[in-house]
């Protein structure tokens, strides 16, 4: 194949990067999980991270809002900037960072509280609203944006853990939206859901793209192909290939990528 000839840094023109990672390496104790990863995340697009399990895609995602800080013995090297500011700089408050860079997890994890309190939790701790009316409004809009309002508006005081899996995940998305983040990280958000619920979440992710930058880790190549504009392929802790989604899936430059997307390994 002709791949070696034209290896250039893949660029998505006319969109500026909101997050940019340079030479990022992550260690868990002595074990290296990521090795010199470079990636630019374009604003208001959906970027998907794919690769076989254990390839470091989730680790990378968790670097972007410093969730790795909570893992004992985890060390991050290199440089990640958000709007040009180093997010690992000592003066950065990781709490505020996480408010700007929200996260939705693999398994729906609503708090065992009411639906209302789940969504209201973020605005409350960050002091985003002045009074009850404003808070109500934020909760309702967030639920609306997450496409859940119609189903739950009569039972906002019911507990969030009583919803179905797909509804729970949409509740978690609503909860993240209520903090009004710029970026939403999604760590295999559909892996615990059935196909119908998955379809709803995918629809939702595409709608959200207008206002948010979304980075999604997925093990489903079809999903990545369906919803994202840019795709990065991780393998053994490194980025093998990154580029425009269509190009990456139809005409991969690296044969490891080729192998993965045609199902030869992974």
């Amino acid at each position, binding site marked *: 194949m002709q791949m070696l000839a034209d290896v250039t840094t893949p660029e998505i023109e006319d969109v500026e990067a909101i997050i940019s990672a340079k030479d990022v390496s992550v260690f868990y104790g002595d074990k290296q999980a990521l090795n010199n990863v470079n990636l630019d995340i374009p604003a208001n697009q959906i970027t998907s991270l794919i690769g076989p399990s254990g390839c470091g895609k989730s680790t990378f995602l968790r670097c972007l809002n410093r969730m790795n800080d909570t893992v004992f013995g985890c060390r991050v090297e290199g440089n990640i900037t958000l709007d040009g500011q180093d997010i690992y700089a000592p003066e950065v*408050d990781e*709490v*505020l960072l996480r408010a700007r860079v929200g996260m939705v997890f693999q398994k729906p994890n609503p708090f065992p509280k009411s639906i209302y309190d789940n969504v209201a939790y973020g605005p409350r701790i*960050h*002091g*985003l609203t002045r009074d009850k009316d404003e808070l109500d409004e934020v909760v309702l809009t967030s639920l609306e944006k997450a496409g859940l309002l119609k189903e739950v508006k009569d039972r906002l005081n019911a507990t969030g853990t009583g919803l179905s899996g797909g509804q729970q995940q949409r509740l978690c998305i609503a909860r993240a939206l209520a903090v009004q983040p710029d970026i939403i990280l999604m760590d295999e958000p559909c892996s615990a859901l059935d196909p119908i619920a998955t379809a709803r979440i995918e629809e939702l992710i595409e709608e959200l793209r207008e206002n948010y930058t979304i980075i999604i880790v997925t093990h489903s190549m079809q999903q990545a192909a369906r919803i994202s504009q840019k795709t990065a392929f991780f393998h053994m802790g490194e980025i093998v290939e990154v580029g425009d989604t269509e190009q990456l899936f139809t005409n991969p430059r690296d044969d490891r990528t080729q192998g993965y997307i045609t199902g030869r390994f992974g």
Partner: protein
Amino acid sequence: MSFLPLVLVLLAMCTFGYWYGSRRAMAQTDSSVRRVAVRPHQFGLYVAIWGLVPPVFLIVLWGLFQEFGSSLGPALFDQIRTIVFPVVTLLVAAGGLYVSIQKINPALKVRKTIETAVYGVLILASTLSVLTTVGIVFSLLFETIQFFDKVPLSEFFLGLEWSPQTALRADQVGSSGAFGAIPLFAGTMLITLIAMMVAVPLGLFSAVYMTEYATDRFRAIVKPILEILAGIPTVVYGFFAALTVGVFFRDVGSAIGLDVVSESALAAGVVMGMMIIPFISSLSDDIIMAVPQSLRDGSYGLGATRSETVMKVILPAALPGIVGAVLLAVSRAIGETMIVVMAAGFAANLTANPLEAVTTVTVQIVGLLVGDQEFDSAKTLAAFALALVLFVITLSLNVIALIVVRKYREKYD
């Protein structure tokens, strides 16, 4: 001003600080800042912390100072106590409140300050358990050293005679009797041995039956009932041993022509064993459960019966863990007080005959310290020396047992 009003005034000041700080923060964020990183109540807390932490620090210092400060002379000391200290404390509190209120502005990172303060409190709370141990060691060691000033080490650890109560003439050397602790150690060991002879077989066989034979239903009903034994207060066991078991053994003894005293080591030991049964059975239960199913399957697969599997595979595999459990039980038996105080003898009696009365370390500690107390008499100090020995022995047993059990668990995890 005495202590309580001072604390109340401090609390009132901080409440005011909280209220005022919150209000001020509220007023300042009234601009159209969309994103406030904190809520007003955090500013309130911030002010309250500034008002509370420095004076509390002062109060603690004062508490330490009081122990030594009386050397200044009572008049001066009293003046400091009633005037200088409260005034200084309140001034410091007011200063803290003022400074922090001045500092309020929306850019101030109050959450960090609050969390640092909370973190400090959490660490302090966790340190208390270490301080407790230090306190135990120091309070015992201090008196014990004084004791060994009066009584030689060799007499205490090698002497065969214990009679601290015989006060001879006050001016005489060693005026308060003999302090040879061997009879106490021997008595403690005798009663512990009897207790173990009751508790180990009963506890272990119960555990084996529960884990290998019993149906879930049987287990669900009987296990909690057995554990009642562990929840009964020791004073109740003591009463039972003294009034029922002791008398029963004496009567049985006289019926078959044996001379059993009603405060026999046997009665105390048997009742103590009874108390320890659930301790051994539940620990062994956990340990037997931790033996991997694959070992059992292997044995059954060869055609072994259940009992053969238990005796030849499970118990040998679980042995280190069970030894650890027994060591923990021994440590508990040695330190047990009420049963022996109520059911064992008081006179030191060096014998290995379980039908006679013996005394134990814990009985003597209680005997020496309950009632009249003159500190620094050898008699009172002896109690601390005994307690130190008790502490060291139980602690060592416990440490060894925990290491053994942990090693065992690592093997199968």
